[in-house]
């Protein structure tokens, strides 16, 4: 178990290093970082100072090491818009993003898993077909379209909920529903197929043959096995919470990381983009790490015990 944990932790660290290297390489490929980050009309002495600070005159591998060093201390430079450290700008947006993505995650899991399990157990029934139809619709509907339809219905026509901003908790309702609905659809579809796969396994029939009643076969034999692949998709959803919020935050003018990223990309505020990239990568890696741990807990086969052949 210790080895398993250690190997996963190493993999997590490697991924983060990979992302940093990605950012480094892409930045170098795209031109003079000083000019890109400082913007062309920055005063020459500021550019010179920047070059010295980042060691742009030094050999490339030294630059790389220094870049990694800076990145580890959270120093990605200053935002070119208001001159504040990029990482601060990003961190202060985190709570807002979590405020909509965490409830949305609860919605995805709380709605998607029961729907998927129910559909699998009542395969080819009306309820199953409806669940799958809704799930296909949820999968193929882009979030901005869903968001705008919700705005059209609840804000423009009915006037029940505010369309954009973040002045009170009611502003969070539409973003949460938008994020949760499509995720729940994917979750339901995935859970259903995981469950169907498990129900076709020989050990399910063997459990029935043993005399275990059907409800218990489902709860004690099928569900624990179906949970294993389902955890992967939950982990991926946790990991991509921020990514999923990019569009939705923009539609609803919600002041989270996603909206910050969009404006940073539009303005080519590279320091902020890099900081966000690292924050998201770290988050993603932590999520994957947690999933791997959950996997080890749920599935004895990956625990890495020396197996008899």
């Amino acid at each position: 178990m210790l080895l398993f944990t250690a190997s996963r932790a190493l993999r997590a660290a490697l991924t983060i290093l990979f992302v940093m290297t990605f950012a480094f390489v892409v930045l170098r490929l795209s031109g003079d970082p000083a000019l890109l980050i400082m913007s062309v009309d920055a005063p020459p002495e500021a550019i010179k100072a920047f070059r010295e600070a980042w060691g742009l005159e030094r050999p490339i591998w030294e630059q790389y090491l220094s870049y990694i060093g800076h990145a580890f201390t959270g120093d990605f430079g200053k935002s070119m818009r208001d001159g504040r450290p990029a990482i601060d700008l990003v961190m202060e947006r985190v709570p807002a993003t979590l405020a909509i993505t965490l409830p949305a995650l609860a919605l995805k899991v709380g709605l998607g898993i029961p729907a998927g399990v129910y559909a699998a157990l009542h395969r080819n029934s009306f309820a199953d077909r409806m669940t799958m139809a809704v799930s296909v619709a949820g999968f193929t509907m882009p979030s901005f379209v869903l968001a705008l339809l919700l705005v059209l219905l609840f804000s423009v026509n009915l006037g029940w909920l505010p369309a954009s901003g973040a002045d009170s908790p009611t502003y969070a309702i539409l973003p949460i529903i938008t994020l949760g609905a499509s995720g729940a659809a994917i979750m339901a579809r995935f859970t259903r197929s995981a469950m169907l796969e498990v129900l076709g396994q020989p050990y399910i029939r063997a459990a029935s043959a043993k005399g275990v009643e059907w409800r218990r076969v489902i709860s004690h034999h099928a569900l624990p096995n179906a949970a294993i692949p389902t955890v992967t998709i939950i982990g991926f959803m946790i990991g991509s919470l921020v990514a999923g919020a990019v569009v939705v935050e923009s539609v609803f003018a919600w002041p989270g990381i996603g909206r910050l990223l969009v404006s940073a990309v539009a303005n080519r505020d590279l320091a902020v983009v890099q900081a966000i990239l690292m924050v998201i990568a770290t988050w993603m890696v932590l999520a994957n790490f947690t999933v791997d741990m959950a996997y080890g807990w749920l599935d004895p086969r990956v625990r890495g015990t020396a197996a008899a052949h």
Partner: protein
Amino acid sequence: MAVRDALPAPLPTSGLSVIARRIARLPFAVSLATLWLALMVVVALGADLLLPYSITAFDLKARLSPPLFFGGTFAHPLGTDELGRDVLSRLIMSIRMSLLIALFGTLIAATLGTLLGILAAHFRRFVETLILMAIDFQASMPFMIIALSVLAFFGNSLPLFIGLMGFHSWERYARITRGLTLAANEQGYASAVRQLGAGPGRIYGRHVLPNIASTLIVSMTLTFPEIILLESGLSFLGLGVQPPLTSLGNMVGYGREYITRAPWIMLAPATVIVLTTLSISLLGDWVRDKLDPTLR
């Protein structure tokens, strides 16, 4: 030694009757999806012929005119926008643009991924480790974020944007191709042909690729709508296709400003996006069921 085998009845040879029977057996939803996609392809191919107006032609007298049946006229069946540009014309050009990007994106992803997958399976060892690491990296970061950072660093241009879309989900093809090729190399038909003395060209070109093609095509029915969604999402945010060019996401993003006064500007392209991705998904699911009966 005489072997008396029960001979199965010969299959009907008339291609036309086979096709006719296949169509008759299509589920209703799949037929509708096929019709819609056919329409989209016709629109994309014949956009120049179908276009009623230039997409930049202003008709300032008819600004924000509603669609037909909602008080509009035949002059602008889907209404006009704030500047009096014909929504139908813009929609036709957007369909062409979005389908074009999705098509090239899918082809790039499939080609790149398949090639890398075969390389990994053929050379094993170092090459394989490297490709697997790249697959892991790609799969561990949401592509939306990768795409946004690349756009931030490099700025935007249409060829770059299409190339970027091609990087979406290449790892899916690499993974599938590597897995299937390895299986075929381990104990399957590819190993048998290799034992006959065939070189790599024959093994991969004549045997492996035709065998995995159906799986790859099914994967393309997943990638295609995903790229449409990704492209339209980025364009919606103003980070994808740039004016004066227009795409479906672009139109929705623009129409969003007029959601209270002229919702049709946004609803027309939104409907096209949803119907198209839905149709491809339905068709893809159906094809997958047909190709692999064990999935049912």
